[in-house]
């Protein structure tokens, strides 16, 4: 059992409902595989850094989950076959990443407390 992160990008021309439905179906795949979903985020439509297929934007979805290798394979298989998914990437979480995320949260909290207007927007994502 290991922690993984998967990001995938959907075609921007989908409606909110369709995109959400797809996301939910992938979440379902994971739970079918007995993987536990820690985070499921929608980053929404973002401008792509380069053209993918015919699109310049994409709808980003982010999963953070723990599971067996088989779960990852199955999720990737589905992502690969789904034609609305234009990009995907699975990463095995680095154990050092956890410490890093805490530090980031601490930095954000500090920045907000010192309350220089506009400063809160500094940390991306």
């Amino acid at each position: 059992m290991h922690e993984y992160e998967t990001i995938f990008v959907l075609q921007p021309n989908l409606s909110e409902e369709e995109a959400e439905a797809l996301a939910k179906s992938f979440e379902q795949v994971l739970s079918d595989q007995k993987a536990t979903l820690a985070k499921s985020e929608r980053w929404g439509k973002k401008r792509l850094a380069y053209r993918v297929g015919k699109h310049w934007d994409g709808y980003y979805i982010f999963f953070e989950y723990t599971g067996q290798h088989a779960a990852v394979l199955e999720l990737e298989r589905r992502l690969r076959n789904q034609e609305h998914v234009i990009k995907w990437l699975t990463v095995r979480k680095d154990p050092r990443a956890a410490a890093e995320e805490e530090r980031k949260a601490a930095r954000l909290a500090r920045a907000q407390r010192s309350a220089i207007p506009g400063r809160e927007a500094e940390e991306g994502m």
Partner: protein
Amino acid sequence: MGSEDRERGGRGDGPRRGGGHKKKFLFKRRKFCKFCDEKVEYIDYKDVRLLQGFIPERGKVLPRRISGTCAMHQRGLMSAIKRARNIALLPFTAD
């Protein structure tokens, strides 16, 4: 030519070639690794704002001698950038 200029006390910034023992003027301080300074252990490929600082105009990764990053963090930075590129968060090339 260039090295003679430096020996005379001319500006000579950029990498030294062969002769010339004057101090170099680099664009960024030699020893300063931003990540070492902040004791960063993991460079997140999702942190586009952080990564963008290391990708100038053409979309190429900044070399260590310019960014001042240490070897270990440069490697982490490079894999983070490559991942971000694959997920279209960063460009491969910008034209």
